[in-house]
């Protein structure tokens, strides 16, 4: 087990290192940061002046190493747009996004797992069709549009939840439904096919013939095995939610990392953007690693 974790950790660390290089070069070489700050119509002299002022005239490798070693000393650079250290921006905005991510994964669990179970227990029934319909709809609805429609419904017709802002947990209800809905199709389909496979397995027939039936059979015997892949996919989805928070946060005016990302992009604030891309990638890798370890812990066959 330890050897497995160590092996995965080495892969994650090297991917993280590669991604830091990719992100930095994409945002500093493919895009000219001086040009981005100066704007499109800037004169050549202005761009050159900015280049010198911010030190973009130095070699890109030198700047990369400066940036990368800074990360380990807690120095993530200074935001041009807010004139603040990037790290203080991250600390300010992170709680909102973490709340949103956790709540939206809870929404995904609450919707997709019961539906998936019901659909698997009654294949080709009405409930199976409804579940499939929900999956098809959720896959095709644009996230931001769903958010706006929610605002429209909950502001005018049924005003029970606030539609904008991030002061109380109630403010997070609608955004997490919107963000959670995007993961519903994948998780529900996985739950359904997983449970269908398990229900037709031999050991379930044995359990049934020895007198287990109904919900007890489902919960004690079938579900334990079918949940394995679902748990790991949920962990990955949780990692995805951070990057996916951009749209939801800007629709519902939540001051989290996603909105910070959008504002920094619009303000051509490259130090903040490159840290955010890197941080979201690291969060994703972390949850992926967690899912792998969890799976290996639950299913010893995977510890290769």
């Amino acid at each position: 087990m330890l050897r497995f974790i160590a092996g995965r950790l080495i892969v994650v660390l090297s991917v993280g290192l590669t991604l830091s290089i990719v992100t930095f070069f994409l945002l500093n070489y493919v895009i000219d940061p001086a040009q981005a700050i100066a704007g499109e119509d800037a004169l050549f002299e202005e761009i050159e002046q900015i280049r010198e002022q911010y030190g973009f005239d130095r070699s890109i490798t030198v700047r990369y190493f400066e940036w990368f070693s800074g990360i380990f000393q807690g120095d993530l650079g200074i935001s041009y747009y807010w004139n603040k250290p990037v790290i203080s921006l991250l600390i300010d905005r992170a709680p909102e996004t973490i709340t949103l991510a956790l709540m939206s994964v809870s929404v995904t669990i609450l919707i997709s797992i019961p539906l998936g179970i019901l659909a698997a227990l009654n294949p080709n029934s009405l409930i199976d069709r409804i579940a499939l319909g929900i999956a098809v709809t959720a896959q095709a609805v644009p996230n931001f549009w769903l958010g706006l429609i929610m605002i429209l419904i909950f502001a005018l017709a049924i005003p029970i939840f606030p539609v904008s802002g991030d002061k109380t947990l109630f403010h997070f209800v609608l955004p997490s439904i919107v963000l959670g809905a995007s993961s519903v199709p994948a998780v529900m389909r996985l739950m359904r096919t997983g449970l269908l496979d398990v229900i037709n397995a031999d050991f379930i027939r044995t359990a049934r013939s020895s007198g287990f039936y109904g919900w007890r059979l489902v919960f004690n015997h079938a579900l334990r095995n079918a949940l394995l892949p679902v748990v790991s996919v949920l962990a990955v989805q949780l990692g995805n939610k951070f990057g996916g928070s951009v749209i939801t946060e800007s629709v519902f005016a939540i001051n989290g990392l996603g909105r910070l990302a959008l504002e920094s992009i619009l303000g051509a604030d490259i130090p903040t953007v490159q840290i955010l891309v890197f941080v979201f990638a690291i969060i994703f890798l972390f949850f992926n690693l967690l899912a792998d370890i969890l799976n290996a812990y639950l299913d010893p066959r995977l510890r290769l």
Partner: protein
Amino acid sequence: MIFKTFIKRLFPRSFDDEIYNLTPKDLIIRKSSNHGGFKFGLSLLLIIFLFAIFGPIIFDVSPYEQDLTKRLLPPVWKEGGSWEYIFGTDGNGRDYFARILYGTRISLTIGFGAACVGMIIGVTLGVCAGYFGGWVDQIVSYLLTCQLALPGLLLAMTIVFLIGPSITVVIFVIGATHWAFFLVVSRSATQKIKNLDYVTSARAIGASKFQIIMRDIIPNTFSQIIVIFTLEVGIAILNEASLSFLGVGIQPPTPSWGLLIAEGKEAIFFQPWLIILPGIALFTLVVSINMMGDGLRDITDPNSKVSEE
């Protein structure tokens, strides 16, 4: 009918059962004509295609022409609407129906364009990884992990906005961030195909690796690639709409659906149709594409059954 079934039960192969004699092509045609979801998705998509191609020719109203005296007119079914402006007008007095109609072209162009870019990248990498194996495979898997870890939407937003948004840039950036599924599928398909007898015989008569890949392998991964392609078109369309909605994709006055929704957002409580109509258009297009993709997956799956009706 009952008699025929009865005989068939007694002597399973005695009847000249057409299903056993079908060529693979006929089998696909029969499966697809029996698949309700596929037929629905395909016909809906064809209608949208016809709308996109011929709509702007028949309905000859410019989506850019402003008439500030006719701002925010309601659509025809609302009170005060008229047949002159079926979907009403937007905040600048532009005909909303014309804008949504032109938006179809933009969504379809970007959806198919970006999926093509993603397919070229993904299939090239996937086929190489599957065919050569060994260290090539390891490098490609490593690239895949990197691609999956990067926050695609955020990166696309940044690059599109800072390079300078245009349809071409959007197509290439969305394509370049969506090739993971193509890679996974074409890699596993190649691994299965490369050990088949006909590939071995092609190698035996002296075909080069390039010839084998181009002539024997890629055409046979096609049925699986097309499924991913369809689903990726849907994903790319939604991505473009999100970018445009956030203001970092297609720029005004081009009538992209995402942009239309962003423009309507200001008046959400007063003119809700400005948001609802392009949203429904977007939803219909993506649903039709996804249903076609799901149908294609069932149809091209060799294990799926042909119903005898």
